[in-house]
């Protein structure tokens, strides 16, 4: 196409833009992206689709099957399941995003410091992450919630901490290989401070590898959040949230299938959409740098 030859586009053809273009052309990324946008739109624009209050109870309307008035039926105390589904998505998606942000911030910082400075600091941080990794999957999050007490904020924090080891390890291994590069030596001989080298030179070069872990991690983090909410350790009633809704719906599994099928489908579609995007990113950056091992991060197969 002629438009592709315009100077502006040629100038913008940095490696980052190239990877982005490749991702945007990927069929599964397109599907995942559209699906995710639909989910985000429906949950954040909830008032456009429903005039009801997600927490308004109406015992006389309890356990009504899906109809025109209640597209996803009603729950055990007569709340509209569709309204709760829409509002519930907000929290479920947010838990995933905030959880992974906490994990990435702490883990990347630790990995940068530990990989760059080495020595006893590195040994200590590595040992500490090994210890954190000794707690199987969700158990670490459970232990943290045992300390902080149940609640949605604590659940996000617990998920974040459970992600720290994977981010720390990946960042560290990437720093170890970058540290010896000539351009880092050049920066150092020009008098750049350690902080400047880490932030301006090493971090941008590790970001590609980390990107895959971050994207796939959002999916795992949504799953983990829903799992904690399902166990009743996260969002407390009456807050609408997909995992918590499943927990409440479980009691009525024999009478009201709609209370378990819809919220679960929400979680499944959200995670699927992110995994599709993550796979495309992983394909796009593959070959150019190390791609993280999928088994490295927690909650993979929940």
């Amino acid at each position, binding site marked *: 196409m002629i438009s592709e030859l315009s100077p502006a586009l040629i100038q913008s053809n940095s490696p980052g833009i190239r990877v982005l273009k490749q991702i945007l052309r990927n069929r599964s990324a397109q599907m995942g992206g559209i699906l995710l946008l639909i989910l985000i739109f429906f949950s954040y624009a909830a008032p456009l689709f429903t005039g009801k209050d997600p927490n308004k109870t109406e015992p006389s309307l309890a356990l009504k099957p899906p109809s025109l008035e209640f597209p996803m039926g009603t729950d055990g105390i007569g709340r509209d399941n569709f309204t709760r589904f829409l509002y519930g998505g907000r929290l479920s998606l947010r838990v995933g995003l905030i959880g992974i942000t906490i994990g990435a911030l702490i883990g990347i910082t630790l990995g940068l410091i530990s990989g760059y400075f080495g020595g006893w600091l590195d040994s200590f941080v590595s040992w500490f992450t090994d210890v954190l990794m000794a*707690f199987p*999957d969700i158990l670490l999050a459970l232990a943290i919630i045992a300390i902080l007490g149940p609640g949605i904020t604590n659940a996000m924090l617990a998920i974040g901490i459970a992600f720290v080891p994977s981010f720390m390890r990946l960042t560290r291994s990437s720093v170890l290989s970058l540290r010896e590069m000539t351009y880092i030596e050049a920066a150092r001989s020009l008098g750049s401070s350690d902080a400047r080298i880490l932030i301006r030179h090493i971090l941008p070069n590790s970001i590609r590898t980390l990107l895959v872990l971050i994207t796939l991690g959002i999916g795992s983090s949504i*799953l983990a959040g829903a799992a904690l909410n399902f166990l009743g350790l996260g969002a407390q009633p009456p807050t609408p949230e997909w995992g918590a809704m*499943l927990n409440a*719906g479980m009691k009525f599994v024999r009478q009201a299938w709609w209370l378990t099928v819809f919220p679960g489908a929400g979680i499944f579609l959200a995670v*699927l959409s992110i995994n599709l995007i993550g796979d495309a990113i992983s394909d796009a950056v593959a070959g150019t740098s190390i791609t993280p091992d999928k088994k490295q991060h927690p909650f993979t197969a929940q």
Partner: protein
Amino acid sequence: MVNYLVRRIFTSILVLFGVSVLVFSVIHLVPGDVTMAILGRQKVSPEKVAELRAQLGLNDPLYVQYGRYLNKALHGDLGVSIRNYLPVSKSIAEQMPSTFALAMSALALALSIGGILGLLAALRHGTWFDTLVMGLSVSGLSIPTFWMGLLLILLFSVKLGLFPSISNGSSPAELFLPALTLGLPEAAVVARMVRASMLDVLSKEYIITARAKGLPERLVILKHALRNALIPVVTFVGLQMAYLLGGATIVETMFARQGIGRLAVQSIFNRDYPMVQGVVLVTATIYVLINTLTDITYVFLNPKIRLK
């Protein structure tokens, strides 16, 4: 080899030490005073609080407390529940067989379903069957365990009435749904691994040699290809114990089954800290031991590593 063994075991001991420190700290990391967290808003006499502090051993310096905790734990004493006053180790020992039965049946299901599907997909590489297995596998990785469990209950228990939806026992019928719930996402991973590993092995020269010397295809696949393709799967089984032990928490809660996962969740609700500490310590220790054993077995099984 001996060098490796010593180093590997030493690392595990260091990690276990860290685990014990972390688990010990649980009770001290609770915001505010832990006795207040346990007693909640109920009005209690200062004597009662003092008694609880003494029971938890909170009056000594931290290092004394930790030393006592470690010494007792090494002798199998994990303290006493502050809710039902039963020894923690006894409760865990009672719940363990149920979790073990669940994890093992889930693993068996995952390996057989995933193994067969992965093997067939590799042998029919590029056909519609291969595509189908891989598609199922991607979905299997995105499905939340608890949702799939509910769908299985809806299908097998509510619609077909074949299996109970609440299952506490260890008979095959009672174990089937919980084990399937825990095992299916695992089967998705196994299928991918076996397929990839099998495709890799099938392209090797010794397979061409085996075929060239006229061995029946069945023998080529079973004796030469499959045996080598299963090596990576062995490591995987060890790693997946983490998932099985963690996933048991959800599956046990869902099917109202006995087990240490459910014990952990209930103890968190009850603020029964000694019980939570005990369950977490035991589970993490089992996991570290399994990982160490897996690493060692892997080195023994794989001559390429052994000879280095």
